[in-house]
């Protein structure tokens, strides 16, 4: 196991992503941040807090569970559902920034776009991830990336966050390619 991002790296990445979001979106009041549970949602709340610290603007933030929209439901045992929290401002006509911890095949994000379409019609959707590890299976890319982490399929990327795991860290483990699918 090797550590790819330390706790300081993670907080720097979150601060940088927050600055980039403010830079790219000239009207930050139209932005809504939705994290994909579980750790994507934790990161979403941190980014919203960071934007508040930097600019004093309070961005509506929530969580979007994508389990029911996954494309691998029928080949896996059923998964428990997670909380979906849509902020009062909704998503209609807004700029929605999806947040996830690791961008890998892109299938989670495809499911998230479907799930988001059920909630409403955002004006535009952007994607922020803490780690982009490559190996995309769909034409999807992130607008904000904390760290590009080239990996092989024999590696797994593990994100730990204080909210859930007691400490902030991103590590890489060696596993068999089959376990990774």
């Amino acid at each position, binding site marked *: 196991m090797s550590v790819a991002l330390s706790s300081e790296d993670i907080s720097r990445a979150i601060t940088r992503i927050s600055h980039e979001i403010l830079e790219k979106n000239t009207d930050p009041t139209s932005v809504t941040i939705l994290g994909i549970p579980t750790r994507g949602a934790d990161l979403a709340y941190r980014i919203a807090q960071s934007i508040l610290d930097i600019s004093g603007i309070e961005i509506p933030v929530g969580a979007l569970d994508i389990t*029911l929209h996954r494309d691998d439901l*029928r080949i896996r045992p059923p998964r428990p559902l997670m909380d*979906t929290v849509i902020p009062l401002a909704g998503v209609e006509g807004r700029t929605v920034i999806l947040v996830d911890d690791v961008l890998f095949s892109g299938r989670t994000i495809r499911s998230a776009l479907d799930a988001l379409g059920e909630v409403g019609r955002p004006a535009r959707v952007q994607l922020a991830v803490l780690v982009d590890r490559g190996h995309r299976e769909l034409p999807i890319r992130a607008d904000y990336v904390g760290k590009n982490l080239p990996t092989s399929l024999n590696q797994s990327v593990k994100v730990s966050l204080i909210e859930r795991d007691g400490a902030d860290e991103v590590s890489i483990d060696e596993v068999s390619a089959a376990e990774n699918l």
Partner: protein
Amino acid sequence: MRHLLSISDLSRDFALEILSTAHELSRVSENGTKKLPTLRGKTVVNLFAEDSTRTRISFEAAAKRLSADVINFSAKGSSVSKGESLKDTAQTLQALGADAVILRHPASGAAHRLAQGRWISGSVINAGDGTHEHPSQALLDAFTIQRHLCDSKGDLAGLHIAIVGDILHSRVARSNILLLKKLGATVTLVAPPTLIPFAWQSWGVEVSHDLDAVLPTVDAVIMLRIQKERMSDLYFPSSREYSALFGINAERASLMKSHALVMHPGPMNRGLEITAEVADSSASVVVEQVANGVSVRMAILYLFIAGNQED
């Protein structure tokens, strides 16, 4: 798990998982999403060999909200003996490619027979078999109680629930007793002695014949329907007497704690086990039970047929 046949097959944790899944699904519906793609391409057959309105419609609505294809199959009027007829029907359903069969049948144990016959490869969901069990009704009752009286992730520990009426013939009562006790509640059965089955001593419940004495202590009361179609013997002298002793009216309802719920699985015999005044009062959650039934059945369909199930 592949089949939902009896509450006794469920662990406490899995029962709670069904309830929390139902909770999430009800919030998805409240967010404005009426349809989810989760069961797209799956075929759900409603096989109802006995009359039912809300259970069939509720399962149908639940399956459709998850994008499954629904086939309604009424096996009523078949003259073939039960075992054979069920087997033949099952093989027809297998040929149709059913991923799940929702079975309502007048014979106790019919769902077990269908699940263990190995005639079909899909899941079997028991929607009421004779006087045996009605698991989805018990789950929606527990869900309704949990929503009103508990934290949404917790069990029902510390609550006292009374089940009133025809316990003898009631599959709703059997499933409810098993589930409520599994989730930590205390259960008291209230009925005339003729409508309490002999086996109650082994169920871990209290029995009372005095509704007025029980009502002030309960957090919810589940009124059962007097099933006229199963009243072949004289279980009580007259409907009026039953109503006077065991029916709930406004005066009795006022004995209950202020937060206590009045529940009924439906269809109600207004004026017999429950007066119209109580059925339409603010303590009554009868209509909400129907709405919750759809969320609970969506959770059941999701957890039992969406994934790649182990036996």
